[in-house]
């Protein structure tokens, strides 16, 4: 049973689970930050900033995350860049987190840009002429709509990110998939080891996707 093997290697699995959670959270936080900045670049009136934004989004969306992770760890590692730490495992983890943030940041940027551009200028003008101050117009007219348009897609990116943390195992982060392979090579109980990890992934992703579905429905009604 997958449950038994979880109890046999509690340290290994719990640490791996924690690594996956950490990588997802840090990666998602980074992706939101990077994505917001790039989205602002893309709608900025300054042309060079817009070009940087477009180049960033298209480059990171059209190359595989695996190549980016290898590049960030091995490629930059060849130049002697160690992510400001002497600990190899820590530097691998930081490279993986940066890769997650960059790759998903490109998707976040597109979603946020869509949310910013989705609102008709006329609405702001109308609310201004109705006597709302600029801040009030932002607070009561623009932001609620941007929020509604961006929250569910951002949730979907978050779910993709949780699943994509498994790629960090290829550069050596001891997250869930890596844990399955370690346990498998120790015990030769392939089905159990992978079954346990499949369960752990489902524990993370199923509630997340139920939550996003709920949000989606709620936002649809509110619209």
């Amino acid at each position, binding site marked *: 049973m997958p449950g038994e093997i979880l109890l046999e290697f509690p340290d290994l699995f719990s640490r791996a689970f924690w690594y996956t959670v950490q990588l997802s959270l840090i990666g998602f936080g980074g992706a939101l930050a990077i994505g917001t900045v790039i989205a602002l670049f893309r709608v900025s009136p300054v042309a060079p900033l817009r070009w940087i934004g477009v180049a960033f989004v298209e480059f990171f969306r*059209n190359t*595989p995350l*695996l190549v980016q992770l290898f590049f960030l760890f091995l490629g930059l590692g*060849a130049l002697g860049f160690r992510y400001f730490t002497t600990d190899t495992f820590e530097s691998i983890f930081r490279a993986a987190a940066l890769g997650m943030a960059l790759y998903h940041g490109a998707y976040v940027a597109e979603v946020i840009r869509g949310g910013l551009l989705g609102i008709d200028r006329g609405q702001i003008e109308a609310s201004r002429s109705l006597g709302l101050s600029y801040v009030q117009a932002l607070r009561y007219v623009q932001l609620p709509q941007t929020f509604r348009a961006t929250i569910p897609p951002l949730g979907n990116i978050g779910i*993709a990110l949780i699943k994509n943390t498994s790629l960090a195992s290829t550069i050596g982060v001891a997250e869930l*998939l890596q844990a*399955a392979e370690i346990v498998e090579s120790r015990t030769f109980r*392939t089905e159990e080891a992978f079954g346990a990890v499949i369960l752990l992934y489902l524990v993370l992703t199923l509630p997340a*996707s139920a939550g996003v579905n709920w949000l989606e429905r709620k936002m649809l009604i509110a619209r």
Partner: protein
Amino acid sequence: MNELFESIRALVCGISGIRCDTWHLFADPLILRFFGEGLLQTISLSLVSVFLSFAVGLLFALGRLSGRRWVRWPSIFYIETIRALPVLLLIVYFGIKGTALFRPIMQPFFGEDFELSRFWAGVLGLSLYTSAVLAEIIRAGIVALPKGQSEAAAALGLSYARAMGHVILPQALRLMVPAMMGQLTTVIKDTSLVGTIGVFELIRQARVIYTQNFNPLEALFFVAMIYFVVCFALSQASRRLELRAPTEVKVKIQEVQLRDQVA
């Protein structure tokens, strides 16, 4: 002038550790051919997987829309479980470790020493995932059609199969063409994961090059550029075929494509 350029280059490379001395490799016809073989593997992997997953995905989309519970529930279970798992896990588990599961089924047909080749193992893992994604996209297209279409087909006395084959699917699939091209871009990026189980596609070829020449930065950047050219062209093409679908379909497709955006 040329000398000045050369000395600047030598200085920059000397300080930064960039391996300028290996750059000529990426113009060498033999090396390019080597990468070309990798690209061929990548493209054949993705095309085979997409065609296979389209067929399987169509079945599951119809299954999920079926009125019979014993068809609908397994389809929902398949689609939702597969979509909740990382594609790398599916490739590693079902592609490599899981071949033991298939051996008993395949041995009567292919002989005692049947082994799933690495290529087909990769196709299996990719198709498992992509079929679930395509099933959702196809379902969104079918649901989006006005109910009148299937009612009219039924009123004209068409059977379920004929109504689907002649009325519903031709219209639904036409709506889905851009989304499917977009999915092909994702699958091309996903094939990079199959390198980890030993298929010699682009990344694996790059690994061969950089372990021989110690230039991971250059080799990986070169490969990233190849991926970029292929995927960028495809995603632009799919954007050109502007989606004329209703908003609910667009929202659904955006959901599917963001959530299942892998590697």
